[in-house]
Every structure is written in C-alpha cells, then in structure tokens.
C-alpha cells in the first residue's frame, strides 16, 4: 500500500473508531490504565491490519515501507490515543527478533507483540553498566540444553507487564568486554526472575529492577550467535533513534500547540517560544529525513545520534516552556490535566539521559561523524 493511500485509510479509521480507541481515563491515568489502553489500541489496530503494515510477511506483517509504521504511530500519538514511549517499544524489539531470532521463533512471537497480546522488555542496563554497556556482568553459564542466567538488570521499562525479555548477558570472561556478550530471548515467567518497580520522580513506575537467580534459558533462545550480542546491540541502537523518534516528534508538536492554547496571555516569552518552535521543527525535519533514508533501504548508523540529541533538546525546550507558561499547574495542580503536565515536564528531564545520554551521543558524533580519533 502506498503511503498516501495508507494515511487516508488510517485517518478514516481513526475518525470512525474514535470512541472505541479513546482512553477511558483522564490525564495520564495509572500505569495499569495506560497499559490496558496501549494493548487495546494495538489489538484494534492489528485486527484492522494497520499495525501489520510495514512489517515483513514472515513475522505476520503485511509488508510495505517503514513509513507506514511511522505514520500510524504519528497519527495515534497526535490524537492522544497512545503514549509514544510505550507505543514505540516494538520499533526496537521487533527488528531484533526479525534480524536475529531463529525464523520459527520470530514468526511465532512477533505477532503477539504487534497485536498487543504480549508486552516485551529490553534488558540492557545494569547497576554498574549505564553508559558503558560493554562492561555488563549479568552472567549466562552453559547448562544442559541451554544456559543459566545470574545477575541483575535495571531501568527495564515495563518489565512488570512483560512476557518476554531481550536480554544481554556476559558469556565470555569478565575481561572480554564487548566480545563476550550474548543476547537471549527470555520468558519472563521463568522461575528465578524477580521484578521490583522503581518509584521515579514523574510518578509513573515504568522502570524496574529485574533480578535473575539461576534462570534457565533454553539453547534455542539465543539471538544471533553466542558472544556476538554486542553487534546486535550496535545494529539496533540506530533503530531506537528512528521511527520511535518520529512518533515522539508528533507528540511534542501536539503538546507545544496545546501549551500555547492553554497558557495565560503574557506568560510565555515569545523568544523562548520561537526557539522551541525552531528546535521542534528542525528535529521533525531531521527525523523525517532519517525515515526517508530508511525507506530507501539505507542502513542507519551513527548519524542517528544527531537525531537523538535533537530530540532531547526539543523535548526539554518544549517542557521548559510548560514550566513557565503553566507554572502554577505544574507546581500546584492536582487535577488530571495538571498532573499530566507535571509528569511530562519531569519525564522530559530524562530525555538527555535515556537511550544513550547526551554525552555518549556527543562522543559518538565526535568519533564517528567528525573523525576526531580516540579520546585518549
């Protein structure tokens, strides 16, 4: 299906099913409510066929370009039907399975993810492993017909709802660094897994600590090759900075326009509004160019670090304006609309931290895009 035709079909469907798709709560609701909403929307979009567009047929998709996925997420986000961060998680998880899982496993599992039947999580960060991903220590040791996992992950989004986890583990010696990492597809119901949600400052416990205590993982759940997990992570990180970011740009645009409509006269400095508008549209322009490159079959690489820095800059600029224009609501409001603005403002502080911090992105830009050589 062509993009224009797809856009019209999606828009028509969203108009027709507006009532069924709308959240049943005001503001941000609880995390349970948000998850129920997300699953409902994914199920309805999957049944209507839209959620299957842009994914390959061998994993239950209907084919077509990534632009279709980008548009669906944009439309759902711009209409405030889903929260973009949670909605976009399959944009990284599904490609991992498509590119690295045994074909039968990918064909069995990916439809469950896309249809909202299951939620999955990504086990990368650890207490001692934030920016330095290559230093991770969660061990996987060979066992009969598989592996035993021992260790801890942290910042694992939505682990408490997840049926599966794409997990990075240490399979080489402790000194093997990026050469001794293996990726697994782990059932979260396996014995030995404990999940502890992290209370975070924006009031939504979406991040978790996940403990693995001698968790058995069957041999056929290795993703890619043993000790090749680093290249999987490196191949996939650019995808974390493409379609998901386009969805986020649509969300930021809606929130900026909502802010401008809701802020009292004189509360916003026009110069600051102009800067935020420039940054937001520049981010959108950059992200669109990335979407088009992806659609043209180009491999994404370190240049997507620019997209990530622009997202963080635009998101923080928009919500810095919120803190000015709706300062009283953010500081004192306990109604659902104010609670949402406050949560979003606080969450925006993390935009330069999650998914590779602003500093790590600048390191990548310096080394890979500017060819400045080693940093020591």
């Amino acid at each position: 299906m062509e993009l224009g035709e797809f856009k019209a079909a999606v828009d028509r469907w969203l108009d027709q099913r507006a009532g069924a798709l709308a959240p049943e709560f005001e503001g941000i609701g609880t995390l349970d409510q948000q998850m129920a909403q997300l699953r409902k929307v994914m199920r309805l979009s999957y049944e209507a066929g839209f959620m299957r567009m842009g994914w390959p047929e061998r994993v239950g998709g209907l084919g077509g370009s990534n632009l279709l996925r980008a548009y669906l997420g944009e439309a759902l986000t711009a209409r405030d039907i889903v929260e973009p961060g949670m909605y976009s998680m399959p944009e990284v998880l599904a490609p991992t399975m498509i590119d690295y899982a045994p074909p039968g496993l990918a064909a069995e599992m990916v439809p469950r993810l896309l249809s909202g039947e299951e939620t999955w999580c990504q086990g990368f960060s650890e207490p001692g492993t934030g920016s330095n991903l290559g230093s991770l220590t969660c061990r996987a040791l060979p066992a009969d017909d598989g592996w035993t996992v021992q260790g801890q992950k942290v910042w694992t989004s939505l682990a408490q709802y997840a049926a599966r986890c794409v997990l990075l583990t240490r399979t080489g010696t402790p000194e093997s660094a990026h050469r001794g990492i293996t990726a697994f597809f782990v059932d979260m119901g396996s014995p030995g897994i404990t999940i502890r949600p992290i209370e975070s400052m924006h009031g939504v416990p979406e991040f978790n600590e996940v403990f693995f205590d001698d968790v058995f993982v069957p041999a056929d759940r290795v993703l890619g090759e043993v000790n090749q997990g680093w290249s999987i992570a490196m191949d996939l990180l650019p995808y974390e900075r493409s379609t998901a970011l386009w969805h986020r740009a649509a969300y930021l645009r809606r929130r900026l326009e909502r802010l401008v409509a809701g802020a009292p006269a004189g509360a916003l400095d026009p110069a600051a509004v102009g800067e935020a508008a420039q940054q937001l549209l520049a981010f959108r322009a950059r992200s669109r160019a990335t979407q088009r490159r992806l659609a043209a079959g180009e491999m994404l690489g370190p240049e997507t670090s620019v997209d990530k820095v622009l997202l963080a800059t635009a998101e923080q600029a928009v919500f810095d304006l919120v803190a000015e224009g709706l300062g009283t609501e953010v500081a004192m409001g306990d109604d659902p609309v104010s609670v949402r603005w406050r949560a979003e403002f606080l969450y925006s502080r993390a935009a330069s931290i999650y998914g590779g911090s602003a500093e790590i992105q600048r390191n990548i830009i310096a080394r890979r895009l500017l060819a400045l050589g080693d940093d020591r």
Partner: protein
Amino acid sequence: MDAAERELFESAVRRATDSATGAALDEALTDLGWADALESDRAQAVGVLFEAQGAAGATSAALDLVMATALGVPDPGAAALVLPPLRRRDAPGRLGSGRCAVRGVGTATLARRERAVVVASATHGAAEAVAIERGVLGVAPVRGLDPDLGLVVVTGDLAAGDPESLGPVDWDLAVAAGQLAVAHELVGTARAALELARLHALERIQFGRPIASFQAVRHRLAEALVSLEAASALATAAWEEPNPGTAALAKGLAGRSARTVVRHAQQVLAGIGFTLEHPLHRYVRRTMLLDQLLGAGAALTRQSGADLLATGALPATLPL
C-alpha cells in the same frame, strides 16, 4: 533532480564556487545552467549553490535572482534587487505624497547592473515592483565588518511616476525565498568554519596529544555539528512548504546555529583563529552579516514565537 543528477550538479557548482567569486562566479553559473536549475528544481538549485557559496566565502548575483524570480518580474536576471536595510525585512521602497523613497542595501551585483528592481509599498495597499536606473539611486559602498561581501547602501527619492512599474508583487514570498537561500548560505559558512576547527583539533598537539582527544574540545565540535545539522534539515525541509512563517523559522535557526558554530570553532582554533593568516575570520564576518540580512536571527526567532502564540499553530506540518 535524482540522486545522481544532484551529485553531478553539486560537483559542478562546487567547482565554480571554489574557483570564482563575484562576476566570474556569475559567468560560471551561467555556463553550468544554474538559472535553468532554479526554474526546474528551485529547492535543490538554491540549497546546493548557497551552501557551496557559503562554504567558499564567495559572492554572486544568485540572491538577487532567487528573489526577483519569486517576485515574478520580467527578465529577473537583468536587474539587481534592492534589499531591506540590515536586520529588516519590509520592502525597501515607500510610496507616499507623490514620492517613491528608497532605503536599503544591495549586493555587489548592483554595481554590475544598469537597473535595479525596488519593491515599494504604500501605507495602505499592495506592494509594487518598480524598475529604477541605477544612476538615479545613491549607491554607497560599505566596508564594515565584511568588506568581501561587497554590500552597498542604497538610497533614493524619486517622483512616484518616474520609475517604471512592474506591477503588484508578493514581497513576503520573495523575502521567504531569500531567507531560505541565506539560511543555506549560513549553513555552508558554518560547515566550513567547523571543518577548519576539526582539522586544527587533529593537528594541534598540546600535553603530548592532539587537542581533538580532549573531551571538552570533542563535545564543542559535536555540539557545533548537531546545531548545523538541525539548521540544514529545517532549511531543506522548508522548501516543501515555503511560506513566510516557515522561512522565518529556518532563517532564524540558521543564524543562531551558525553563530554557535563559529563561536565553538573560534574557541577551538584559539590563537591562530584570531589572526588574518588563518581563514576563520572570513567565516566569522560572513556569519555575522548573513545573520542580519533579511531579518536578524534573534528578532526572527522572537517573531516566530509571537506568531505561534497568536495563531496557535506551527507554520509547517512537514508531513511524511
């Protein structure tokens, strides 16, 4: 233009801007068919030339041509265009009390053309383009911060009936086209300044290591590249919805970004970048001038914000 055609076009334009400036560059651009490209694919023609011109620090009649073409005046390449004074973007001519008063600036092209096109507006009424013999106008060369740019100050006070009327025009659309061209030129200027700083960082040894190995330097240059790519992406995308609001956003961002880039470049280049022996100063000067041509970056940014507050909507949707 497809990708291969664009590559050929771009390398031809780069050869021209790297080897010639002023009248010689205009000739080279005529030879390679730039004016035809402007008609058939305005976005690519303007983007490629102005980035190359900025990178080379060259000048040409292209801005006059881009804006005159947008105005729709006959034979747009034949005359020079009078621009608003620096930092302004309203029409440089004013009609009233039977007079046509002109106050603006011109590019170096003005000295090479017999006639100038001036857009003049009455207090109430549409803007009108008029053609004026150059000899009737006061044309004073300026040296100022960037003598190589060759700007001139243009003044005039004529009886309203004297200039030949070229009919009503949409000045705001011509300004938008000019602003996008200047935005691309700022991106090219900044890219060249960043490259000078990058090369210096790799060559300059202190404490026994290239200064490129110090994170403070690396992050400055990375920040400069991000800023530049943001401006480039917006200037390029703006051609798909070229309206005054989008052009003001793109030009405002390009000015602010280019100033950020040259600031970082100058800091990294340190002592050598402060001398006339090193080319950086040319890019610093050009950035400061271009940031003020057809509206200053800071004022455009504020105006974009005021427009958004008034209308409640961004001027461009940038659809997939």
